[in-house]
């Protein structure tokens, strides 16, 4: 086992056993004791010891290490989703902190292993990342630093154009629209069979058939269905050199690797916090550590005015679910009960709480988690609200404490994980090989200057004009970058950003 001190190793064994007794089920977890500089490095690499060379890791590192050096922030724990799991402890943290981190980490590891959204992740990502690094270094040697770096920047600009829900599916395949020639497309419906020759004379029929074939050749749409997994599509169909294809594939792989972590942030942190709190207070802490623990724990789950803390929302929801299922506050009787007092004293002694939260951690992600378990009572109890920016005073004000509004706001923030939904509608737009993208507008405009640049980057890969249909200031608009000029056409006819052809 790694380089833990004897004291820490003894604690680790103890905590590992306690975690197992709590029915947590995790891959072997290897703890490494490292100093702040190493932890800053690993953290800037997303937890991995080796990544491909890129300045943005340097940027992260600069920020993390500087803010640590000036005492402004501190990373307590880091764990990566691999088998075995690797987790890092920082030298010089107090014993209580280390124990807390270990307990927390076992919570994460259990979540990684059992949550369904992680079921398809590559558990050997450590090797994979090192592999990526080697490949990119090789390209750098061959094509030059700046060339490769520029291309990586271009790819990173499109990094979020993946289909997060396809994580559980197998590799996507893109097909052109089915092109079967149907008789009904060029014949007229005939009620009585004896009218057939009159309505559809054979000579005319043949002519119509040829016309239809011609029409279909023009109209063939590709891809058949709008494509959300734009990165995979580009890898397959964009006119890229082999190394570029590979780089794009690397970016895509890593993007998909991190996606489930973004999709389950609230649950994952809630779950780990739930367990560290349970294990620490019930089994691990000694008397002298309790104050420090309470201090640290409340620091972690503290929700700033007007802030959203996934740790806080996660752990409170987990506890709420446990409590509800313990008391039988679910099902039809509960839903139909309107009596406030009865609801308050509701206790059917079902005792299913623990089982329920284990089930929850297995099959939910943040969106379904909030959708299903955020209740009005929970919002009231936790004093949740929706805030808005008051333009006049430039201050955030409480907009409403209405339950529905809170829920829809939260879900909106989480839906597609805070990213706009953009799909490839047509890869042969206007029959000129242009790309047509459609942004499903759900109330928020895209940021114009970033959109402009991202389209340029997309052009650099697709090498044909890029068109994007979206809404800007309540008007449907099509933006177009043709390699030289960036233009905007208003789609005056409708508010619906769908293109009709």
């Amino acid at each position, binding site marked *: 086992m790694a380089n833990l001190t004897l004291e820490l190793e003894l604690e680790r064994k103890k905590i590992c056993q306690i975690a197992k007794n709590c029915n947590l089920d995790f891959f072997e977890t290897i703890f490494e004791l490292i100093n702040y500089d190493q932890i800053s490095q690993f953290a800037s690499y997303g937890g991995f010891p080796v990544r491909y060379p890129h300045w943005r890791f340097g940027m992260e590192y600069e920020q993390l290490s500087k803010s640590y050096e000036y005492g402004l922030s501190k990373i*307590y724990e880091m764990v990566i989703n691999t088998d075995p799991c690797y987790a890092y402890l920082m030298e010089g943290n107090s014993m209580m902190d280390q124990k807390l981190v270990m307990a927390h980490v076992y919570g994460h590891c259990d979540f990684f292993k059992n949550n369904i959204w992680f079921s398809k992740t590559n558990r050997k990502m450590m090797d994979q990342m090192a592999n990526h690094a080697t490949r990119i270094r090789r390209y750098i040697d061959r094509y030059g630093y700046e060339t490769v770096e520029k291309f990586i920047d271009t790819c990173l600009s499109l990094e979020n154009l993946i289909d997060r829900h396809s994580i559980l599916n197998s590799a996507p395949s893109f097909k052109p629209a089915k092109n079967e020639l149907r008789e009904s497309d060029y014949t007229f419906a005939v009620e009585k069979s004896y009218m057939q020759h009159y309505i559809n004379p054979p000579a005319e029929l043949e002519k119509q058939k040829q016309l239809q074939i011609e029409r279909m050749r023009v109209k063939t749409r590709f891809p058949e269905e709008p494509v959300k997994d734009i990165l995979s599509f580009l890898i397959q169909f964009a006119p890229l050199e082999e190394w570029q294809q590979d780089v794009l594939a690397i970016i895509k792989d890593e993007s998909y690797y991190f996606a489930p972590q973004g999709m389950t942030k609230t649950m994952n942190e809630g779950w780990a916090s739930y367990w560290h709190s349970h294990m620490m207070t019930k089994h691990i802490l000694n008397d002298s550590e309790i104050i420090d623990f309470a201090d640290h724990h409340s620091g972690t789950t503290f929700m700033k*005015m*007007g802030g959203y803390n*996934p740790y806080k929302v996660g752990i409170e929801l987990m506890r709420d679910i446990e409590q509800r299922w313990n008391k039988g506050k679910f099902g039809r009787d509960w839903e139909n009960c309107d009596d406030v007092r009865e609801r308050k004293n509701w206790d059917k002694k079902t005792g299913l709480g623990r089982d329920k939260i284990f089930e929850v951690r297995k099959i939910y992600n943040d969106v379904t988690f909030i959708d299903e378990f955020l209740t009005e009572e929970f919002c009231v109890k936790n004093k949740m609200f929706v805030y808005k920016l008051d333009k006049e005073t430039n201050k955030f004000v409480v907009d409403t404490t209405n339950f529905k509004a809170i829920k829809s706001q939260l879900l909106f923030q*989480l839906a597609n994980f805070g990213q706009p939904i953009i799909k490839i509608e047509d890869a042969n737009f206007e029959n000129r090989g242009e790309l047509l993208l459609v942004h499903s507008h759900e109330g928020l405009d895209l*940021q114009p200057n970033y959109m402009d640049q991202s389209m340029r980057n997309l052009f650099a890969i697709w090498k044909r004009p890029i068109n994007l249909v979206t809404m800007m200031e309540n008007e449907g608009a099509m933006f177009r970058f043709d390699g030289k000029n960036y233009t905007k056409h208003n789609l005056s006819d409708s508010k619906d950003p769908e293109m009709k052809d």
Partner: protein
Amino acid sequence: MAIREDQNRFKSIVKGKVREDFKRFVTNGEMIGKREDEFVKIPLPKIDIPTFRFGAKEKEQGVGQGDGDNGQPQQGQGQSGSGQGEAGENPGEHILEVEISLEELAEILGEKLELPNIQPKGSSQMITEKNRYSGIAPVGPEGLRKFKQTYKKALARYISSGAYNPDDPKIVPIRRDYQYRTVKKTQSPHTKAVVIYMMDVSGSMGDEQKEIVRLESFWINTWLKKHYKGLETRFIIHDASAKEVSEDVFFKTSESGGTLISSAYKLCQQIIQTDYPTSDWNIYPFHFSDGDNWSGEDTRLCMQLLKEFFLPNVNVFSYGQVESKYGSGQFLKDLQKEFLDDQRMTLSQIESRDKILDSIKDFLGKGK
């Protein structure tokens, strides 16, 4: 370490040495952190990789928690709901509070700077004697008994006499072990100094100009406070009229209006006359402005004040002028005309953010 490569690459991109195409995505943000009792404002360059993302509106709305009714304002700004996107990618990381600093901080703090021309002053060079309970004596009143020291002594006695039993580590101190706090006299020569910051917050100073002034005065203030114990500071902001403000307000305020520089000088004069007799104090006024004074009349008044009151009475008068689109920058030229060779006046021009460090060196660099 491989990360150093990436770090250096990032730094050279930010400095614009390579990749010109990236320059427009470099943002010069800064953050205010709180260290101990002081606010720390740290510049933080970042490069944003452009992606398809939501516009500013997204940040205008979110879910929060706490007491509050409809319409009630929230504390703080910009702490909008996150938990999506970038922030959510790495669940393993857990950061308590993030504020970032730059190498400039280290550079400035490490720089050999000094308050120029500082003289031993203050209650006629009196040596102050301070009583501090930092000594230890074997006798004293029970109220001042130091438990820890007493325990240590007793423990040492137990161990050396072989009476210590690790399984039953009971220690009973005897009279001989008792230790007490006692007064220790410390002597220190006294030099008193006051720094008075004046900032032009008039309408002609754009956000960028104010920011530069704040950054510069902040760094000067931080550095001086660190190196001169007991340094007093006063803060004045002015547009057409001047008022004294707290440090906190000075670094945060934004106002607008016309500019009458003399108003600040008058207030500064008043502060000096009432609180800081020149015989006892080293006095360092700093004034920052875009140099766009309202009228020649007022400028003449300023010159008069400088000549007749400030220069004879203060150690050094420092004037920093930040370049502005709207300002004429005339004031600096006027000062140069009058006082170019005067040792008691330091002038500095701050063209942009990047020149802040140079300007600080102008003011506090050694060899003035």
